[in-house]
């Protein structure tokens, strides 16, 4: 291959700075989206396992719509279609007035999408906690809120921690799609450095290593959380 390797180029100003801001944007988008997703998923999972037919239906519609449309399409819809459907003044605010329109839209879109996927994990966790627990809570005189808050959700979160880890990594990787609406995160910065330097192989190698670094941190973090929150006797380890 007739390629001139030049790793040093990535140390030339301003490229380290670009990679760093890209890395931080990626982390910022993913963590904000995760906070939205976690909150939403909890609400939706509760709705989907509640005794009210209306709330179960609403939860199901949310999950099926949001997780069945590719995230890329959703980002485009939120960014380009939704503002046009709003009244003009609102639409203008969304396009110009709101702080960082691209980044905000990307975080919301990613949060809603991940929330739908995560809700299914939480629902599975609530089911796994078992009808016995629910009935026992009822028998003790706990109301619906207390049943979920003190009995069902704490068990459900612990049960689904391993699959939650995958979703948490997924949100970091999916955050790269934000570049399609002009958010300059890690992958976009790598693209940009490539255009300036014509050294794509070095640039993308470093970007890859940064993504690997993020996922390794998540794995260790979640393993630690798993250990910390383990209830003695509730999980059998081999």
């Amino acid at each position, binding site marked *: *291959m*007739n*390629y*001139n390797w*030049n790793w040093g180029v990535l140390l030339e100003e301003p490229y380290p700075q670009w990679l760093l801001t890209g890395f931080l944007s990626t982390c910022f988008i993913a963590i904000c989206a995760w906070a939205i997703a976690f909150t939403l998923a909890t609400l939706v999972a509760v709705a989907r396992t509640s005794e009210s037919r209306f709330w179960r239906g609403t939860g199901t519609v949310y999950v099926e719509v949001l997780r069945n449309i590719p995230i890329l399409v959703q980002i485009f819809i939120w960014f*380009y279609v939704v*503002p*046009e459907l709003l009244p003009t003044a609102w639409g*203008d605010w969304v*396009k*110009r007035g709101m702080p960082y*329109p*691209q980044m905000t839209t990307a975080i919301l879109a990613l949060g809603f999408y991940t929330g739908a996927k995560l809700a299914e994990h939480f629902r599975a966790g609530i089911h796994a906690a078992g009808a016995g627990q629910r009935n026992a809570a009822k028998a003790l005189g706990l109301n619906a809120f207390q049943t979920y808050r003190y009995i069902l959700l704490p068990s459900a979160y612990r049960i689904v921690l391993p699959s939650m880890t995958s979703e948490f990594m997924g949100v970091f990787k999916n955050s790269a799609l934000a*570049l*399609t*609406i*002009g958010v*300059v995160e890690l992958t*976009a910065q790598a*693209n*940009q*450095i*490539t*255009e*300036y*330097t*014509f*050294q*794509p*192989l070095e640039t*993308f190698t470093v970007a890859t290593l940064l993504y690997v670094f993020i996922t390794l941190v998540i794995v260790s973090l979640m393993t630690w959380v798993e250990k910390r929150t383990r209830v003695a006797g509730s999980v059998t380890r081999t």
Partner: protein
Amino acid sequence: MKPLLLVVASVLLAQSANAQEGPTLSRIADSKSLSISYRDSAPPFSYLDSEGKPVGYSIDICSKIADAIKKELGLDELAIKYVPVTAQTRIPIIANGTADIECAATAITLDRFRQVDYLFPTFVSNARLLVKKGSGITGLDSTAGKVLTTLAGTTSERALMAALEEKGIDAKIVKSKDNPQGMLNLEQGRVDGFFSADVILSGVRANSRNPDDYEMVGESLFSEPYAFMVPRNDPDFRLLANRVLADLFSSGEINTIYKKWFDPGVTKVNIPMSPELSALISAYSLAK
């Protein structure tokens, strides 16, 4: 981690082994085929026609180069393979020998010479500002407090940021991923101006819903030459291709090809030949 490193290392080694292969012309002679890389949405330089075949100004010029290669090597037939590339893949594709020549629209910059060589320039673009008619913007000087967009990572972006800083104009820059998106941002009123090469702006304006609502304003901020990329350090191949270009330039045939694609051109870009390009063409009409 270790297995991953091994895989990466073996891939790199395998590719450097290929580097022993001879220069471009002997590879073409052996395989009796020429690989041309192109951008599939860079009208009128290279794009796909309604039948999905690559066409355009650059493709036309490249087919002349292909004819010359066939004659020079004395081949009965020369198959042409088209390899679509993106801004990110165009360099490795030339560097690793997947393609022998890139026939699209790549600006010449000094840093890029570290990876590839260029033929003589075949186009000169001028960077301008596209705005909605009646927006009150008459050039970069009247963009204070406005929002502008430009393509992330392009030479236009660098020029725009430098010009705004130099003139002390406080305009916000929003980045767009590609040309249709830059136009969409302008159409939807997310931005007040789209800064890019004139040829790109004409193209996206022609394809917009209401081309008459938009106009290009202001002086050209900078101009830059476009040229075809070829593998680095292959003087024989480069000379053969440059010979074809010099012939096209001195015979005036380039004007016919230019008119076909740009003036007004099948894609309605409507850009008459700029003084910069005619000057380059006469300068590169080299003697045999």
